[in-house]
Every structure is written in structure tokens, then in C-alpha cells.
């Protein structure tokens, strides 16, 4: 198993890592909800929220660089919001001429755009901190605690367990394809010239190769799930996902949770009262 790079968990000894996963889960969700509810252009609130998540990042010992670099992941989606600068009515800011097209940027549009980008950036940081500071089994417990159906949590757990196995299998399939030179257009053409494949080398041929791999992967997973099921049965599985009872939260945990929620509520009220 060499695909551990998939697992975002970074073990550290920090107060954030030590925090109960349930508290982290709820506070992360509350943070993202707060960010979402904060009015457009409430810059002071954005700065305060950024300060909050930044201090959590420093406390967690994950390294700000690590979190910020991962946070770039959501960036490409910004393109979808870009047109809003030019399409929202309001005070005209500047005009760009593109041939016969004239685009006029409005202040309101720019504010909306920058707000969307900031909101997305803040939210993704919170999600990264949670995923990087909490081992997956603890996240599963947190999900169970907030009332996500036990069966679904059980499936998430099994999916996580076999994710690495199947990603490994997918990587092996891809390596085998590369070894057979079934990957690039050039190789396919050579095959076609030598007459090994009648219409080989076209995009459709490459797609069929990839499709065959997908079908292969699916079939292996299907048969593997049969074996897993039988193995589970022989160990007494009866369709019920049994887990240890959750430990009750400590009073310090409750305090952290309440303080965090209160702080977020204050920030939200601040934003809504002054900018809403």
C-alpha cells in the first residue's frame, strides 16, 4: 500500500489535534455556516474570521503554508464567479473593451466577487484543518454523534478502508497500460500502422482501453466485496453495524464547544447588524 499520500491526516501533538472530534466537527460546520451567512462586503468580519482560522492553524502546528497551499485547491472554481463583476448593476468602476464588446465592472459586482472568493477560501481552510488534524475513525465517530445514519457511517468506514486498496489497484492498472504503451496517441498510431489494431490509436480506442480498465476495476471490487462479506459473516456479522458507545464529552469539551459557538455567533451578529 503506497498511496498513503491520499490520507490528509498529519499527526502532531497540538491542542487542536487533542480536541474531541465531535467538537471539531460541529465547530467546523458552524464556522462554515457563519462564513456563509456573513453579508457581502462585511470586510471587518472577514478579517476577524480569517484571524480566527489563522490562530487555529498556528495552534494546530500543521504549518500555515501547508494549509494555505491546500486551500488553493478550490481556486479554479473562482472562474465561475468572475462574470458577476461585470454583470451586476451598480456604480461603474472601469471599462474593458474587447473588440466590439464593452465590459463595465461595477463596484457591487466586484464586492460580490471578492466576498465569494474570500468566503470560499475561509471555508476551505476550516475543512482542511479538520481533515488534517483528525484521524478518519474519529471523524466517523463524530458523524455518528451528530446523527448521520449508522449504516451510512458504516459504508463510509468500509469505503475508507478499501479506498487505498482500490486506488492501488487503479494505479497498477495504469502502470500496466503504460507498459503496454496503450496510453499515448503516438503508441496507438504505431499499433495501427503495424496492423495490430485496425482502428487503434484514435481517441475512441484510448477511451475504450480506459473503459476496459474501469470495468475491470469495478469487477474486481464487486468480487472483492463478496469475499469481504463472507469474511464478515464468518466473524459473526449480522447486518448490524456495531460500534463502541460514544464517551460523553468532558465539561472542558462542552466549555470549548459553547465558547466557540458563542464567538461565531458574536461575529455573525456583528456582521449582520453593521452590514446586513
Amino acid at each position, binding site marked *: 500500500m503506497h498511496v498513503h499520500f491520499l490520507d490528509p491526516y498529519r499527526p502532531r501533538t497540538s491542542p487542536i489535534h487533542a480536541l474531541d472530534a465531535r467538537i471539531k466537527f460541529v465547530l*467546523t*460546520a458552524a464556522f*462554515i*455556516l457563519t*462564513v*456563509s451567512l456573513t453579508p457581502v462586503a462585511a470586510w471587518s468580519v472577514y478579517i476577524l474570521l480569517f484571524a480566527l482560522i489563522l490562530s487555529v492553524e498556528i495552534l494546530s502546528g500543521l504549518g500555515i503554508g501547508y494549509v494555505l497551499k491546500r*486551500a488553493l*485547491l*478550490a481556486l*479554479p*472554481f473562482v472562474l465561475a464567479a468572475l*462574470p458577476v463583476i*461585470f*454583470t*451586476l*448593476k451598480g456604480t461603474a468602476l472601469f471599462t474593458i473593451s474587447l473588440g*466590439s*464588446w*464593452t*465590459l463595465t465592472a461595477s463596484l457591487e459586482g466586484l464586492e*460580490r466577487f471578492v466576498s465569494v*472568493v474570500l*468566503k*470560499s477560501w475561509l*471555508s*476551505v481552510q476550516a*475543512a482542511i484543518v479538520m*481533515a488534517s488534524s483528525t484521524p478518519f475513525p474519529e471523524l466517523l465517530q463524530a458523524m455518528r454523534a451528530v446523527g448521520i*445514519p449508522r449504516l*451510512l457511517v458504516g*459504508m*463510509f468506514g*468500509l*469505503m475508507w478502508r*478499501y479506498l487505498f486498496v*482500490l*486506488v492501488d*489497484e*487503479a494505479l497498477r492498472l*495504469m502502470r500496466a497500460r503504460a507498459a503496454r504503451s496503450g*496510453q499515448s*496517441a503516438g503508441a496507438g498510431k504505431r499499433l495501427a500502422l503495424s496492423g495490430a489494431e485496425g482502428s487503434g490509436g484514435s*481517441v*475512441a480506442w*484510448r*477511451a*475504450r482501453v*480506459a*473503459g476496459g480498465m*474501469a*470495468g*475491470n476495476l*469495478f469487477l474486481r*471490487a*464487486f468480487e472483492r*466485496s463478496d469475499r*469481504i*462479506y463472507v469474511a464478515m459473516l464468518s466473524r459473526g456479522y449480522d*447486518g448490524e*453495524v456495531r460500534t463502541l458507545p460514544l464517551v460523553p464529552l468532558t465539561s472542558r469539551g462542552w466549555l470549548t464547544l459553547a465558547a466557540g459557538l458563542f464567538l461565531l455567533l458574536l461575529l455573525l451578529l456583528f456582521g449582520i447588524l453593521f452590514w446586513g
Partner: protein
Amino acid sequence: MLYSPVPMHIPDGFLSTLVAVVLWVVSAIAVAYALRRVGKDLGERQVPLMGVLAAAIFAGQMLNFSVTGGTSGHLVGAALATILLGPWAAVIVLTSVVSIQALIFQDGGLLALGANLFNMALVGVTVSYFVYTSLQKLARGRSWGIFAGGFAAAWLSVVVASLACALELAISGTSPANISVPAMGGIHMLIGIGEGLITVGALAFLYAARRDLFRVGEATPKGGAAVWTFGLGIAILLAVLSPLASAHPDGLEWVAEQKGFLDIARGPLYEIIPDYTFPGISNTALATIVAGILGTLLVFGVALAVAFIRRKRPTT
């Protein structure tokens, strides 16, 4: 590199809170129902089968093939899962995939997860099921129905899911409808071809290797009615929302008004048909909605009739 083969996972911040919460509720109800249905069909096999297949779909999304100049085709898997597992199990498998992508890999937001589940797990699967079974019935059990149905289901599921995504962004005021709908739709019409080709390739492999698997998807006569109702609901929702979203005064129209080429710049997809309004209703948005609903019902009626005729034939 592994993440987001298709730019369809909405991150947090791009949806208004109302849209995100409403879609969360819709998705939660649908997933809970699907969970019950699958539990009835599969019993205790449910957890291992669904969990491992979700992992397979996740890993399968890594498989790509080069198209041209650095771009590549990918698999999303909604159609493949629907064809092989039936609609309810496919909803559960895709729910697991999309949730883990959001939770662990920040591929799509947490508050936006409801919307992403709606687009990929619910809309994607419903469209796939609807298209695949319809073509299957037209083909009357001949093998081309599997492949043509597979391609059409894969292509259309990607395109319709992207349209739903664009509409959600438009309703949230993040992206103007008359830009985001054609742009998202256009990009995904190309991406969908890759999805369709891979799906056909996978189906061809499985058809040769394990033909018996194809009966799994068909053996859902009981769930049929509910899926059709749900599909109809989604189609009507889209029909209602698209005119509303574009009746919104912002968008290209403002630029167009300034330049005075309003009639050229107005080009969302559904306005391709001129006079697509209903006579006797003065409010254009309302008239378009009514026309949209009637059109949807008509399409479903025809599809149902075809399905009904085809179902009757083998028994007589």
C-alpha cells in the same frame, strides 16, 4: 491531480445559504429513502457491497485517457453505477463518494455538500436511469441498447448535472444564469463525451466478462414508479427554475442594454426555441414556467408510453 476530474464540485461560499440548506434537506431525504430501499433489497450485504463499490468508483475516477494537447477524459461513474447496480444503490454509492471527497479532500464544500449530492448523486443517477431504461426498452433486449443507452446516459447525466450546478450558482447570485448555464453546459457537453466513451468501454468489458451483471440494473421493477416520480419532480424543478433564474434582471443584459444589442446577447439554452411561451398568460416568466412544465410532462408521458408498450410485449 486526483481531485475533481470534472469541475462540478461546488466549493463553500459559492452558494447562498438558503440554496445550500434547501438542497441539503432535499438530498438528506432522498438519501435516507434510498438507504431504506437498498437495505430492503440487499439486506446485510448492503454495507460491504456499497462501501467497496464506492471505493471502486473513487479509484475509477483516477483512470483517464489523453484526448489531445494535455487534456484528458475522465470517469465520473454515475451512469456506470446506475446501470450496474440500479438507481437506489447508485445513489448510495455516489453519496459515499461525494461525501468523502468533500470531507477528506475538500473537493466540494461541506455546506455545499447538499447541493453537490443533489447534482451528482440524485440528478446524475435519475437522468442515467431514465435514459438508460428508455433506450433499453427501445432496443428490446438487443445488445446495442446497453451501449447506446450507456453512452447517452453517461453523456446526459454529466450535462444535466452541470446545468443543475449552473442554475444553483445563478439562483445564489454568484454567476449570472445567461453566462453560467451555456458555459457550464457547453464545457460538460465535451466532458460528457469522454465520460460516455469510458462508460461504453467499461460496459463492453463487463458485457464480455460478466453478462449476468446486467440483470442487476434491470431487476428494479418495484422502485420504478418512485424513480419516475422523482425524475419528473427534478425535471419540473429545473423547468421552473431556469426561467426564474434568467428573468433575474442582472446578467449580460445590462451590458447588452448599454451597447444596444439586447436581442443578440440574449441566448440561454432554453430560448433557442422562439415563442416558447404559453398563450393567455401575460407574465412571461410564468408563461415560460407553464410551458416548461407542460413540455416536461409531455416528454415523460411519451417516455412512459414507450416503456409501457415495451413492457407489455414480452408478457403477451
